């Protein structure tokens, strides 16, 4: 079951006494083949879990770097099915877990049931849906659960304690803590310590849930989070893809190098 696979990944990392490294890149950026190569390179460079963006043009959460990636993928004609194919192909050769991160309208347009079926068949471990907040997402989350897909609830600095508890109560094994109020790719505007304080609060309420920390993390700050469960780097990688394309370099190689570096920083 994919679900248990994601949890196993976290447990493996835990045993290593380090935080998991998650990467976020947009599926299909800049095209199907390169995107697959990027995922492979990321996996080979030591990422623990891959977040694959199923981009949406009219999103309201992405910063500039991720918008660029999304725009490239969409204007290249990438469809939802293409993303599933990329993941399916990837999973043929790699164990690394893949989580889809997307927006609600992509799921609606595909059909909720069909979307989940396809996740299962292409071995997607989890789903993050940025604009589908608790409790509106509970029905869908339940369907995910029934299909052994982890629906990852989101938390943020202004989620008050009541709400935090309620969400955690309904949450699956993994949650995501948005480290600051911002879109993706902004400078970290709160201190690492503050983030960890919130992280600890979450862990105190739900010691058993794995909590991913995301937003604003780069090579400069990642080491601060080595004692947490997991953290995500996204915009930095998307920017590296953009730079590679602009300078006619190999994005897979460059992103891979960056991931190796991040992994090292997170583990040292």
């Amino acid at each position, binding site marked *: 079951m994919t679900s248990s696979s994601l949890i196993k990944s976290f447990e493996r990392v835990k045993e290593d006494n380090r935080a998991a490294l998650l990467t976020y890149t947009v599926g299909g950026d800049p095209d199907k083949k390169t995107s697959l190569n990027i995922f492979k390179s990321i996996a080979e460079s030591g990422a623990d879990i891959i977040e694959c963006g199923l981009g949406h043009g*009219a999103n309201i959460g992405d910063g500039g770097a991720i918008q660029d990636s999304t725009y490239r993928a969409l204007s290249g004609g990438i*469809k939802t099915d293409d993303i599933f194919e990329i993941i399916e192909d990837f999973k043929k050769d790699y164990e690394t877990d893949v989580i889809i991160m997307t927006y609600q309208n992509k799921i609606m347009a595909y059909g909720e049931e069909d979307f989940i079926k396809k996740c299962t068949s292409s071995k997607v471990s989890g789903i993050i849906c940025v604009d589908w907040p608790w409790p509106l997402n509970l029905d869908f989350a339940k369907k995910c659960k029934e299909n052994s897909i982890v629906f990852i609830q*989101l938390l943020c600095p202004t989620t008050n304690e009541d709400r935090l508890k309620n969400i955690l109560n309904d949450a699956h094994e993994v949650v995501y803590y*948005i480290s600051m*109020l911002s879109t993706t790719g902004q400078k970290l505007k709160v201190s690492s310590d503050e983030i960890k304080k919130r992280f600890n609060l979450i862990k105190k309420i739900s010691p058993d849930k794995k909590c991913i920390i995301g937003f604003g993390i780069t090579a400069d700050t990642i080491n601060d989070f080595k004692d947490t469960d997991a953290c995500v780097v996204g915009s930095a990688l998307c920017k590296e893809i953009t730079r590679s394309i602009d300078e006619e370099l190999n994005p897979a190689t460059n992103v891979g190098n960056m991931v190796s570096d991040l992994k090292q920083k997170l583990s040292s």
Partner: protein
Amino acid sequence: MMKLEKGIPIIDQHDANGYWGGKFGGNQIAESLNYPIEELTREFEKLRNDATFIAERDYYFKNFVGAPTPFIKLENLTKHLGGAQIYCKLVSKATGGAHKAYNAVVHSLICKRLGKTYIGGDTGAGYAGKMLSMAAAKFNLKCKIFMGAKDVERQSINVFSMRSYGAEVVPVNSGSQTLVDAVSECMRWWTSENEEAHMCVGSTVGPTIFVKICAWSTAQISREMKKQVMDEFGEVPKDMKLINCVGGGSSAAGFWNEWIDYDNIELIGVEAGGPEGSSKHAAPLTNDSRIGVLHGATQYVIQDDQGEIEETESISAGLDYPGVSPLHCFLKETGRARYTSASDEEALEAFQLVSKNEGFVSPSLEPSHAFAEAIKIAPKLSKDTIIVVDSCGDSAKDSKIIAERLGYKI
């Protein structure tokens, strides 16, 4: 089939999750917006029952926005068309030249009550942004306006106004570079800044609370008009049709608000049909487009089978929006309002006919769509039928576009 309730404001006919008819609207937002939206929802419920706040609102509506705007008979147009009697609610006389002033004033007042000193908003035609920057200047608020780069270009007169009121205008270069992208960018900005800043959504779109505040603000239009209708006719006319253009839908929502319970009054919404021959309509209701989520709310959206927003095309920047208010989705599904569209060409022709006949009425391209429908149906109707068109914007902002299209050298 969905049902409207009588005696309850339409803005309150949503369920606990913010859905009208259990289906349209809602708060499909990032977790980072949950707190500010809850805060705003709480505050608004308090304020709308606060007599001091209402008095303040009414003071600014009267003295700054210039309420009530005139309600006049278009004698020449009526004679020219030779059917129904055509009246016009001249909302374009509101300060700044459009209905957007009402929402902007209310949001600015709320912003102050929230103790915030920074306000941001989206704009398409530039009116929402112009009015918001006007109000922000008056109320000493720092102001930021998001506007599609294409709209910055085609509605430059309003951009000028915003800048002169001291607002920062941010051209949005993503996507179609129109309103849809401006709203997205504005919501992204608010996601980052909501601790210090308040957001004004320029139409009855976005998360439920924004739909409610906006429609509550523009409802002033029909409150004014109800009195004017009674003064003119002594009673509610038996056969009356209220025609309004619909982009996001804030103008129509306000124009119709007080009349929704009167079943004999027909409500007609006119969407942007785009250029003749093009299929890029900004008319989600007319064309029964698919339901989807846009800008935090469920609604009819012009989209492809991937859930991607499709590019729309309209001569009127203000109607050039692929979604539409949940309120209008609800009014459509309940059968209470009828929706149709007018093409760019029909709107242009309507603009000319109205201007040349009436002089004092110079509708911008948005209400020209409503006039186009009036012009279409009036000749076939009896002299006892009253058509009221909401002329909700002034043409000055469109001078460049219209002059170019009509071949005036300016």
